[in-house]
């Protein structure tokens, strides 16, 4: 008992100590930069959370590492971009991005993955093949040029008169609210609805859920749709925040992987924690040590795997 308590203290000292020292130094040095980076990190984290929560949902339920998740993100972004350009409606673009990715996800699940249930490795390889194909088709259609979507009018321009920071982009700030809203929605869906109960039951024990008379295939399809759709929404958001180019799929896939590995696979709360950690680490890295920012991500990955091989919120499979 005392030993585990001491270990925990040691762990927090080891991890928290340097962070605290750095924070104090950075705050004294330049408070505005520190707070700006904090906000940037949190808004990036909410994008990561939206994309990675879909990934973790799918993985938790089906033990299926969907490596085409990044491609679905890109697909949603491009579709959203096209719709926004045609109609000028941002919300419509978001719905379009969600729907496009969700339908693509549904097709993948029903047409291909369902036929190889239980063969984890083969499913993963199929998603790898799909990601190559989807990425190349998107490159074909939308070419390699940068697509930058504009934020809706009511979110354009900065919010002024914030103490210390002075001004901050309204769109980015709204992302924070958006991420929290999606998090709350997912929590509500998983904990307060029947579908959510089924999904949670499936995460814990697939076989038992099927034995209880639930149509597991339907639950799988709905979850895969939801997960893919979340990637699509993330794509539309990211099209404004980060811009769309081929290669972004890899970046978001890496982010999802790291978030899910750090947070614990199959746990939405874990995805939120992982996203915040990764978002902060990436932005602080970029602000304070530009050429080594990836190293921080890597160090976090190593630390988590060393102390908690199944992630912060992960349970034994």
């Amino acid at each position, binding site marked *: 008992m005392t030993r585990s308590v001491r270990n925990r203290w040691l762990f927090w000292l080891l991890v928290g100590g340097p962070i605290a020292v750095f924070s104090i130094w950075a705050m004294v040095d330049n408070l505005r930069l520190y707070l700006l980076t904090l906000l940037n990190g949190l808004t990036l984290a909410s994008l990561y959370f939206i994309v990675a929560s879909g990934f973790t949902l799918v993985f938790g339920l089906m*033990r299926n*590492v969907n*490596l085409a998740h990044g491609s679905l993100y890109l697909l949603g972004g491009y579709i959203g971009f096209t719709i926004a350009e045609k109609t000028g409606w941002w919300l419509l673009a978001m719905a379009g991005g969600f729907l496009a990715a969700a339908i693509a996800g549904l097709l993948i699940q029903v047409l*291909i993955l369902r036929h190889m249930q*239980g063969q*984890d*490795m*083969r499913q*993963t*390889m*199929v998603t*790898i*093949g*799909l990601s*190559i*194909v989807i*990425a*190349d*088709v998107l*490159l*074909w259609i939308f070419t390699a040029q940068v697509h930058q979507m504009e934020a809706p009018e009511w979110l354009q321009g900065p919010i002024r008169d914030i103490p210390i920071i002075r001004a901050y982009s309204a769109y980015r700030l709204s992302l924070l609210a958006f991420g929290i809203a999606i998090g709350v929605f997912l929590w509500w869906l998983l904990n307060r609805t029947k579908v959510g109960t089924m999904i949670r039951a499936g995460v814990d024990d697939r076989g038992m859920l099927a034995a209880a008379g639930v149509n597991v295939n339907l639950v799988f399809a709905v979850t895969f749709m939801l997960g893919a759709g979340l990637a699509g929404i993330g794509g539309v958001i990211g099209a404004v925040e980060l811009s769309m180019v081929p290669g972004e799929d*890899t970046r978001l*896939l*890496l982010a999802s*992987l*790291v978030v*899910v*590995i750090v947070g614990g*696979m199959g746990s939405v709360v874990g995805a939120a924690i992982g996203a915040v950690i990764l978002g902060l680490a990436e932005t602080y890295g970029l602000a304070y040590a*530009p*050429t*080594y*920012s*990836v*190293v921080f*991500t*890597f160090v976090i*990955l*190593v630390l988590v*795997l*060393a102390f908690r*091989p*199944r992630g912060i919120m992960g349970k034994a499979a």
Partner: protein
Amino acid sequence: MSAAHWRRAMNTGLAATSAAARQLPLPRAVATTAPAATPDPYADSDAPRWLKFLWRHLSARHVFVLAFVLLYPFVATPFFTFQIAGQALALGLIAASLTFLGGYGGMVSLAQMTVAGIAGYMLAILGTSGAAGQAASLGWPWWVAIPFALVIATIAATLIGWLSVRTEGIYTIMITLAIGVAFYYLALQNYSVFNGFQGFQRVYPPVVFGINWRDPVPFYFLALACSLAGYLLVKWVVRAPFGIALQGIRDNPRRMHALGYNVTAHRVAAYALAGLLAGVGGILLIWYNGLITPNSVNTGWLINVLVVAVLGGMRHPIGAFIGAIVFVLLQTFAIDVIDRERFNLVIGVVFLAIVLFSPDGLLGLWAKLRSRFGPQAALTSQPRRQA
């Protein structure tokens, strides 16, 4: 069967063997000590052991393939020798390291190209290159730089292994992919060591014994020697106690653990060995390309190694080389069939088709054909499917 039956059966068996034993000391022209179970036609010759071993294990197809690869560069054009065969051998060696890890160890690592890239980067950083930027090569002679590059690559592979064996199966692929992509971004963003986006240009093999090893034929034979050595090493290791234990761990880690094997140590050692192979392949590849940039280790290439290994078939190390030849041919000649830009589409569709219809790759297709049209030989190692 009653006890009496048993006894009779035992007795007749005993009688048969004792009769055989009684026959043995009888004067014969040649005193053979060959075991009666498997008649060995080469046992009575005076040839050294290794030659007998060779005779026993060589078949017509080995001789044919060996003769073909030795004569190939003298028949083929330099383009085919260098661009096709040289590249395929280098790529095949990297993929063979994945086949060893995935097929015999059950750990599909996507970071093999990263390990190869680390070896290439180290060679460029320690050795000579025409880098223009913040980072400069140290300019060590090749006989120092190459061993150091290989050692560093092996250490990196061991670390990657140590990290990823903490998790199992499907998690491995995620973690190694994350590590691989992280290294790509590190190489891309870091200018002080990895020279950022530009990478290192003009990294050529040294001129040794008055031979320029970048000429098509010498490079081909260099790649062939390395690949053959790697292939034979894998073939030998999987028959050695270590390899057998590794396959046991692949099939049932808990049982092997219960038997007293150190599962983690075996897995990490497999990563280290695969890392060495990938490192050699990486050095060949950097010499082939003449440069290394972050794009040599991007996600596309991480996945291409897997594509090559799966294309040929993961159950036998030769599959990696077959897959590499098909891959390189597709890469080179897809331009004639369709747009060059669409190569990824072709390779993606081929990969999907293989995974969907023949999970054991081209070797699996071949085995299927053989079992349909001829007697089946136990050619490949059969991993047990886990529920």
